[in-house]
């Protein structure tokens, strides 16, 4: 037979539990949002921002596409047909193969850079990032508006594309110099990967493009950085490829340039492999 004293205490405990459950049920409108807030705060603490990989570059070079491909969120069947959409804010992805590393993709439009880049460049300067992927595209930066509204169009429409590409290449060098300034302040080992994408659009001029990034204005800026940083604290890799294969079009579906004939799926897959392998090798360098 149960001990009356113990049995009484147990009944009291059950009564309290029932009372608490009833109160919780009656006040679920109040409790639920508080619990959700608590959960969100805990989640932030656990999965909070640690050292990651920054993906930088001008607007329309393919940063978001890279983030989505590396995190396994890009659907090659459905997403290839969508038009270019500027990213408004900083986006974060987790690499499929290394989910502990966060990919932080910054918006590339000049006026959005002003609001978001200073803190990211600050984290490079403070050595808080593992590495940086600097996306370039030999100037083939997607336009969301019509090219006819571009400041370079009016004066000489026939040579617009050449002047536009040259202007955007200069912008790529300007961005590299901005990133280099932060890297120079960084006392910790950090890698930089220059990913020159949209190979399917410029492969016919391959020699010139490679020259620009290896020994031209871009390459020279990298050499300067290498000399100042030294190989112990800095590693740079250059990789050429195509994340997706498509014509160079504006957000209004105007074709500015068709992709190079002969640049097929096999070449694209090879280039993707090169990109993935390079990123993996850079991650290993950090671990050593």
């Amino acid at each position, binding site marked *: 037979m149960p001990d009356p004293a113990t049995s009484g205490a147990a009944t009291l405990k059950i009564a309290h539990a029932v009372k608490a459950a009833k109160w919780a049920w009656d006040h679920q409108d109040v409790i639920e949002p508080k619990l959700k807030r608590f959960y969100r705060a805990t989640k932030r603490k656990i999965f909070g921002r640690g050292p990651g990989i920054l993906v930088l570059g001008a*607007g329309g070079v393919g940063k978001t596409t890279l983030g989505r491909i590396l995190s396994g969120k890009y659907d090659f069947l459905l997403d290839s047909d969508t038009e270019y959409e500027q990213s408004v804010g900083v986006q974060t992805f987790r690499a499929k193969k290394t989910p502990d590393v966060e990919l932080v993709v910054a918006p590339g439009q*000049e006026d959005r850079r002003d609001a978001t880049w200073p803190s990211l460049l600050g984290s490079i300067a403070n050595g808080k990032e593992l590495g940086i992927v600097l996306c370039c595209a030999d100037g083939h930066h997607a336009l969301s508006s019509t090219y006819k*509204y*571009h400041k370079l169009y*009016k004066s000489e429409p026939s040579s617009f594309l050449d002047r536009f590409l040259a202007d955007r290449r200069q912008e790529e060098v300007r961005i590299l110099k901005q990133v280099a300034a932060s890297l120079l302040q960084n006392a910790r080992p950090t890698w930089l990967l220059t990913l020159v994408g949209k190979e399917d659009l410029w492969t016919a001029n391959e020699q010139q493009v490679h020259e620009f990034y290896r020994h031209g204005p871009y390459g020279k800026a990298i050499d300067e950085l290498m000399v100042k940083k030294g190989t112990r604290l800095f590693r740079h890799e250059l990789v050429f490829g195509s994340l997706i294969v498509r014509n160079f079009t504006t957000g209004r579906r105007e074709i500015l340039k068709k992709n190079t004939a002969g640049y097929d799926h096999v070449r694209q897959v090879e280039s993707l492999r090169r990109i993935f392998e390079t990123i993996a090798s850079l991650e290993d360098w950090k671990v050593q």
Partner: protein
Amino acid sequence: MAQETEAEMFGRGVCKLLQEYAQKLEQRMSEMRAAKQAAQMRKINFVGSTEWQSLQQRIGSLSQALLTATREASQLAEQGDVRDLTRFELRLRRAEVEGLIHASEFLLNSND
């Protein structure tokens, strides 16, 4: 006087639209806040109600359309053939609208 470029006309049109629809978005957000407050006073669950769904849809669709317009504004401000003052206004309007869109997302996602 120099002839106004097509980009300039378009840019000023975008500014005007951003201004007009930012006000509409603000108005819908106020409606949402008022409806939330009224529901809280009556101690009824607002999130998920028909009224909430209707307001959520109206705010969501307007935000989406505004976002497309801010992308145009951003592109024009950066590389468009527009006057300096228009460039400046495009930047301001874009920043204002994107801030509002962000606030509307916060409003839609908060369960208070």
